[in-house]
């Protein structure tokens, strides 16, 4: 399906360098887990793939073509929070993506077109197990159900790449295990490329077919923001394989 190539990527904010010298080739269909302590630019990297921000230097290619300047339907996303629309019911949250695609002027469908969209959205809700809750509002759902909804909503436009930013960080352990199963199943069924940021190293190794560790290699004790993080470990794992090569543990990002 879709490959991501990153060429010599740097990201700097005024007075602060977040990422430096990132080079990466991700073939289509990989499940890439990105781990590292907070403040090491994992989420920044995800925002760059999302086109939410522009890199200072370097480029990101999707299937050999530079990324567009804006977020778009080719890259879906699930955030830790606020990914779903509070004013729409579960069903309408998913139908929205189809309506936006089919109706540029008012973003709403009527009659048979609407019925088809509802049927299609219903199949996604069934895939994430939310059929029972289709008429409820997000505020009436548990945290896990809200993330299921966010995933269904992200899949409805059939993105080439799915970006997950700490998607299960706010969930309790039992729910989290269910969600791991769900996301692995959806990934296998769709064959899309997945990037998942997590600070739970175990989670990264359990889900990913490849684990990237972000950390700073250079550090200036006088000016912690002088150097950015880069990929310090790039560990390929066999699909379905559980954590075997243990990294050097939970090293905090040197800048902290």
């Amino acid at each position, binding site marked *: 399906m879709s490959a991501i190539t990153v060429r010599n990527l740097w990201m700097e904010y005024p007075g602060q360098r977040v990422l430096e010298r990132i080079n990466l080739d991700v073939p289509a269909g990989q499940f890439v887990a990105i781990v590292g302590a907070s403040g090491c630019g994992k989420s920044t990297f995800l925002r760059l793939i999302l086109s939410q921000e522009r890199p200072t230097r370097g480029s990101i290619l999707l299937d050999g073509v530079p990324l567009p300047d804006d977020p778009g339907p080719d890259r879906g996303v699930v955030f830790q929070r606020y990914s779903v629309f*509070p004013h729409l019911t579960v069903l309408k949250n998913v139908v929205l993506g189809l309506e936006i695609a089919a109706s540029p002027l008012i973003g709403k469908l009527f009659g048979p077109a609407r019925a088809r969209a509802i049927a299609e959205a219903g199949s996604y809700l069934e895939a994430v197990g939310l059929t029972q809750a289709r008429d409820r509002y997000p505020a009436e759902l548990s945290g896990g159900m809200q993330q299921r909804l966010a995933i269904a909503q992200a899949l409805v436009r059939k993105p080439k790449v799915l970006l997950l930013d700490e998607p299960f960080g706010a969930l309790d352990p039992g729910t989290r295990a269910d969600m791991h199963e769900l996301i692995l199943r959806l990934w296998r069924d769709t064959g899309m490329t997945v990037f998942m940021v997590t600070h739970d190293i175990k989670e990264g190794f359990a889900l990913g077919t490849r684990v990237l560790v972000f950390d700073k290699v250079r550090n200036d004790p006088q000016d912690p923001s002088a150097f950015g993080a880069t990929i310090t470990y790039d560990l390929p794992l066999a699909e379905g394989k559980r954590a075997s090569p243990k990294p050097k543990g939970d090293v905090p990002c040197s800048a902290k």
Partner: protein
Amino acid sequence: MQRIINRRPDRLIALMLGALPFVIIAALYLTFSAMRLAENPSDKLLPSLQTLGDAISRFTFHREKVSGDFLLWTDTFWSLRRMALGLGLATLIGLVFGVANGLIPYIRAGLAPLISVIAVIPPMAMLPILFIVFGLEEVSKVTLIVIGVAPFLMRDVALRVAEIPKEELIKAQTLGASTWQIILRIVLPQILPRLIDGVRLSLGPAWLFLIAAEAIAAQSGLGYRIFLMRRYLSMDVILPYVAWITLLAALSDYLLRLLSRNAFPWVAAGRGR
């Protein structure tokens, strides 16, 4: 002994406690009115129930001799017309500019400074200018309400738009939504309940501006009437008019609250958590 902060009145007692101040005020009024009228039967300050009733029926059910109007209803019609036009326009302006201001950085850069300057001009100080520019007719009164209320609504809406989590806007873009679709499907529906709240808060100032404008220059309207009657010390007319204005204001607030509650069930869902 239970602490007083933990003791709650039941429904009936709460109702009676709520009614008590009204009863006391009414009783005081009647007592002092009777005392003053016993001393001087033509006293105008605290008219008796009889006199009040006569005035109400004169203004409500009988045509005025010169104009042939039922004065209370004519006054109410004109005041509500000005109010509806003024508030309606202010709401529309507040919504359009507020959303544009809150969502589109280039518009915010161009408009925000101007809006914050306009918002601190005391609207009543603008009234003479409005009368000079727009004349003494309807336009100047409606404009005063718009000028008084629109900047507040604009800023309120812009703040609410800015409060929508960035994640939602990014998510909408990853679903392929254009700016227009984001406004239509994400921003407007989430802003409308807040806008109604803003309009409810603006009702007080709007009535203030309306009555002030009518008091200074008008040939009709509730504000015009009470200031006209002041010249004759006609408390028997002024008191019912003030009560009527209060009722109208409370009723419009209630209707807006009802609309907000029934039109946006998701707001209640969010509060229930």
